[in-house]
């Protein structure tokens, strides 16, 4: 009979706490948004499901010998998962539009202002006593503004692992919300005439340029920001495998089986950081708030940089492609295209926006390198 009582007490009904129940509801909400609303489902389904698993009482899944904790230790504490994903993303990236119009790299630079202003915002909120973020935590929050999932997870895993869950959820949620966040800002900062600017067609790019570019990028990273090398090194490696044309079987695997496997494991690992005790804290609200700020500022500074470049250059660029500099590949580029079509139904900006879009990936990886160098170790 005592054994029966023991068994009853081992059930989840008895053990579950309200915070755990709330987290399970949040996990279900993430799944709902991913499945029904198309919110970055490749990541938010494993993250949401992992989050539910992590809040089930009476069994160790996200701690100790639990499988999600093992995945976390194996792939996130080591940085292996985000770096392998970055390699796969590199193998899927086409630098052609960027090579055809290299000055759009500046748009990818400007959009990183979202990262650093958010970092300052986090420290300001600490200064006025609303929150209590360290420099490491503020940096990890800022990187949400990079609008790049693996970069955010890599940086947060090193600088503020205790916030990894909230940061990843914010990063992917806002990436999914780019079609809602960006257009009002883009319209507010541009005139009707600016939105109608048509751009000259991009020149063709040779295969050799595409092969040399990742190596050139790697060498520059090595010389200027070594701390960004793990991220950009794996990214360039993936891109080289794709462009060189002689290892297509490796490139295919990096883009498919390998990135899919790692995505499943990475998502579950991130989900393991959605335990109620880690997620249901005041700082999560700050992260959500500041993450939204980061996306908005990044968008605005990309657009404004495009307008600034037009002051100095006769070859005008449509400022709507500036917002694509935040990354969120390829969503942000599609948004540029869509808002452009509203102003002029014959003005297709998609290819032009792909340049700043991938530039934003490089830009936020460089910013990540600086953050790791400055605030890390």
């Amino acid at each position, binding site marked *: 009979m005592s054994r029966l009582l023991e068994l009853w007490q081992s059930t989840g009904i008895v053990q579950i706490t*309200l915070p755990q129940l*709330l987290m399970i509801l*949040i996990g279900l909400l993430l799944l709902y*948004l991913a499945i029904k*609303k*198309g919110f970055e489902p490749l990541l938010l389904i494993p993250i949401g499901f992992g989050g539910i698993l992590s809040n089930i009482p009476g069994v160790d899944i996200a701690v100790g010998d639990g499988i999600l904790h093992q995945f976390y230790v194996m792939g996130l504490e080591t940085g292996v998962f985000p770096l392998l994903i970055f390699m796969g993303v590199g193998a899927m990236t086409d630098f052609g539009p960027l090579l055809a119009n290299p000055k759009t790299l500046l748009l990818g630079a400007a959009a990183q202002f979202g990262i650093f202003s958010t970092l300052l915002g986090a420290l300001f909120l600490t200064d006025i006593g609303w929150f209590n973020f360290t420099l490491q935590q503020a940096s990890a929050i800022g990187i949400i503004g990079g609008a790049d999932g693996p970069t955010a997870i890599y940086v947060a895993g090193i600088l503020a692992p205790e916030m990894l869950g909230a940061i990843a959820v914010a990063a992917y949620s806002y990436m999914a*919300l780019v*079609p809602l966040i960006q257009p009002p800002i883009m319209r507010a900062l541009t005139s009707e005439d600016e939105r109608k600017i048509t751009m000259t067609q991009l020149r063709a790019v040779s295969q050799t340029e595409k092969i040399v570019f990742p190596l050139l990028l790697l060498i520059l990273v090595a010389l200027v920001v070594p701390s960004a090398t793990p991220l950009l090194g794996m990214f360039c490696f993936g891109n080289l495998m794709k462009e060189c044309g002689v290892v297509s079987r490796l490139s295919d695997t990096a883009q498919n089986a390998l990135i899919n496997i790692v995505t499943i494991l990475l998502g579950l690992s991130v989900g393991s950081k959605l335990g109620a005790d880690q997620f*249901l804290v005041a700082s999560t*609200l700050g992260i959500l708030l500041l993450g939204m700020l980061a996306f908005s500022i990044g968008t605005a500074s990309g657009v404004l940089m495009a307008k600034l470049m037009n002051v100095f250059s006769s070859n005008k660029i449509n400022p709507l492609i500036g917002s694509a500099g935040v990354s969120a590949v390829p969503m942000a580029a599609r948004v540029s295209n869509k808002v452009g079509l509203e102003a002029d139904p014959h003005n297709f900006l998609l290819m032009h926006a792909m340049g700043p879009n991938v530039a934003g990936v490089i830009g936020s990886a460089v910013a990540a390198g600086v953050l790791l160098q400055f605030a890390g170790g």
Partner: protein
Amino acid sequence: MNNLLSQGFELALFGMGTVFVFLAVLIIATKAMSSLVLRFEPAVSVASAATVAQDAALSDRGHLLAVISAAIAQHRTTKK
């Protein structure tokens, strides 16, 4: 009957009991879920997902923030 065997009987009894209770509850829950889903399913399929996506996503964002905020508030209250 020694202790090990009696432990075994206890385990067998509770084990089969749990299996039956669990699957019986699952039958009821599944039937309830199915009838619930089948009541709403037509409505969902009439309103095209594509046309309502944007507004829905907008309100969902608010929903997400609202739920998380409420959850955190709740949690902080219960901890005190």
